[in-house]
């Protein structure tokens, strides 16, 4: 059977046979780097197209349907436009920081891809503190937003950046707590082990109400962390025109744009790994025939299906809800989500210690 794992192992063996161990490893590093960049480009194209089609579907219109078959090349055309545009730096801007911010943003998103398991045994870096690594790195993106807002020499940008700072720092807590719920149940921070722990069933099904609550909190928190509606206060189109990236144009704007979608992907992927078992197929008790059919579906398809389910939910939020105000946003976090998350974590710990989960 052709799976992602099989392909990668074949490539590895082929390289080792011809180049020897050291050179093969060096070549593989380069290949992985190229893969991340390529994956980002494709991800951006696919997600932007998906967002436009989803929004069109919810808004009783057709969406892009002119360029390429079914409008699929529209995002590619947009990318070419953005790349060929002049990147302006506003007068009075801090040039170095202004140029640094989008790069920092995209590097953070790329680093986040490392611990994600795309399929069975396909993972860039199976670090033993995987989910902690994701939490830690993802909070660096607030720096990029703050730098962008500060260096633009624009009041709208500054306001957006300040909002974003307060928002990301707050919601980091809730996201962390809901991740901890799963860590407690799985007994490990390592992504591969969290997935292994769900061999007999996804945590969503085995973990009773606490996991469901954790998943909902997680979804809300990552929507806020990735600055997407209804928590898109950093951009807040109708208030701050485009918030922290008002002054950015051309490729630098495209990097922010790409990073947003990449962050959505990473957040959804982590969500899928924690709550829906990553690449683990759906198994139902003793239904052997059913389980075997589920096993037959490649693990990468399982992973991407679950991830895109979460991505769809996050897009669904965006096209349904009005935006919150900054004080309401912080109120929601500190007064409701955080206490609920802490209680939820305690309940989950009790369940884990007593072994009450299925």
């Amino acid at each position: 059977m052709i799976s992602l794992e099989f392909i990668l192992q074949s490539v590895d063996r082929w390289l080792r046979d011809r180049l020897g161990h050291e050179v093969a490893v060096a070549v593989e590093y380069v290949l992985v780097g190229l893969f991340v960049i390529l994956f980002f480009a494709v991800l951006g194209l696919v997600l932007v197209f998906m967002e436009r089609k989803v929004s069109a579907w919810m808004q009783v219109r057709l969406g892009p349907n002119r360029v390429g078959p079914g409008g699929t090349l529209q995002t590619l055309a947009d990318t070419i436009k953005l790349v060929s545009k002049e990147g302006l730096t506003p007068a009075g801007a801090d040039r170095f920081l202004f140029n640094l911010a989008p790069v920092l943003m995209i590097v953070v998103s790329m680093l986040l891809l490392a611990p994600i398991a795309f399929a069975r045994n396909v993972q860039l870096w199976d670090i033993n503190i995987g989910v902690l690594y994701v939490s830690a790195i993802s909070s660096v993106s607030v720096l990029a937003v703050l730098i962008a807002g500060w260096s633009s020499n624009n009041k709208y940008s500054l306001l957006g950046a300040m909002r974003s700072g307060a928002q990301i720092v707050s919601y980091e807590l809730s996201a962390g707590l809901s991740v901890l719920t799963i860590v407690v149940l799985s007994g490990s921070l390592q992504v591969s082990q969290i997935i292994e722990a769900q061999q007999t069933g996804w945590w969503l099904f085995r973990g009773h109400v606490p996991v469901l609550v954790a998943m909902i909190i997680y979804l809300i928190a990552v929507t806020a962390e990735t600055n997407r509606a209804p928590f898109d206060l950093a951009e807040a189109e109708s208030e701050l025109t485009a918030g922290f990236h008002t002054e950015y144009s051309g490729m630098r704007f495209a990097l922010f744009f790409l990073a947003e979608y990449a962050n959505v992907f990473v957040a959804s992927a982590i969500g899928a790994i924690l709550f829906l078992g990553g690449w683990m197929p759906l198994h139902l008790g003793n239904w052997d025939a059913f389980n075997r059919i589920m096993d037959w579906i490649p693990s990468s398809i399982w992973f991407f299906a679950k991830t895109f389910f979460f991505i769809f939910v996050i897009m669904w939020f965006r096209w349904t809800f009005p935006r919150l105000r900054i004080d309401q946003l912080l109120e929601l976090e500190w007064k409701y989500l955080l206490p609920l998350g802490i209680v939820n974590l305690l309940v989950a710990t009790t369940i884990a210690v007593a072994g009450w989960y299925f």
Partner: protein
Amino acid sequence: MFKEVLAEDQDCLTLNVGPQHPSTHGVLHLVITLKGETILRVDPHLGYIHRSIEKMCESLSYRQFIYVTSRMDYLSAHINNHGCALCVEKALQIEVPQRAQVIRVLMDELTRIASHVLWWGAMAMDVGAITPFFHAFREREMINEIMEETCGARLTMNYMVPGGVMYDLHPNFQRRVKQFISFFKSKLNEYDELLTDNIIFKQRTQHIGVLRREDAISFGATGPVGRGSGWACDVRKRAPYECYHQLQFEQVVEQAGDCYARYLVRMGEMRQSLSIIEQLIDNIPSGDYQAKTKAVLKLPKGEYYSRVETARGEFGVYIVSDGGTTPYRIKFRSPGFSNLSALDHMSRGHKIGDLVAIMGSLDLVIPDIDR
């Protein structure tokens, strides 16, 4: 363009919102003074699309000047025309035939629904929900098509003439309006599900931009803004024109005075307009659609004033005639201008996000303010 007003307090931030800004719905320029995110003062700067419509009217005949007013409040162009036609008829004491009166009221109410539907979408967009805007346009399109069939235009209908309307109704009119009514009734409930009961929307609009009744009266804030503050100021009830006194409808009044109250007033008005259309659509009297008038109208020397209720509030037309074929002086009392004047009062102490919600709830049309 404008010199930044140096605030007395050095911690304050002066921010130019507009004239090119996504939520000012046109070329409105607000200079806001901020402390953090809190608004200390809002100064609207007007005049970016001032076209001196009042002055232009002085060189147009009494048949022609009516149509310039379509370009003021373009979302209730028909009702503006209606106000002007009423003023000329009042001066010349023209008796408008029953059929023309009913047609005018039908068109007015359709225009009101079209305007409120668009406002509903724009209001949702201001508080950050984008989807309602597209849903609103679907319904608005149906009204536009009805207008196109009968009046020949979709936005600036120019259907009114002194003494009646320009042509008779299109044969399809009744059927299509009935279709629209049955379609729109179900959609209104959908609107409620999508936005009215949405908890985020309620949080964003309740207790925001409160305008008390006395303030509404002293600012001259009419229409849904005034009625949202508990001031029953509907011209259709207070000084009925055409056949409004024969119709069964309620004046929607809310007491709270906040953005949500203004929202509810407009939602209620759409339902009332639907009921007015339902009452009239099967009872259009036969007869002339236009009274017989002279080719060249000359208003007797004097001053004339008439007012109508547009989608945004009270629209007044004041004509001074020296007995010639063109007005000596014309003044329009546009509802948007007075409503905007209350903006500073309402938004002080609120956040930037609230300012946008308040502007949305005022339903500003900038050409109506600048004229």
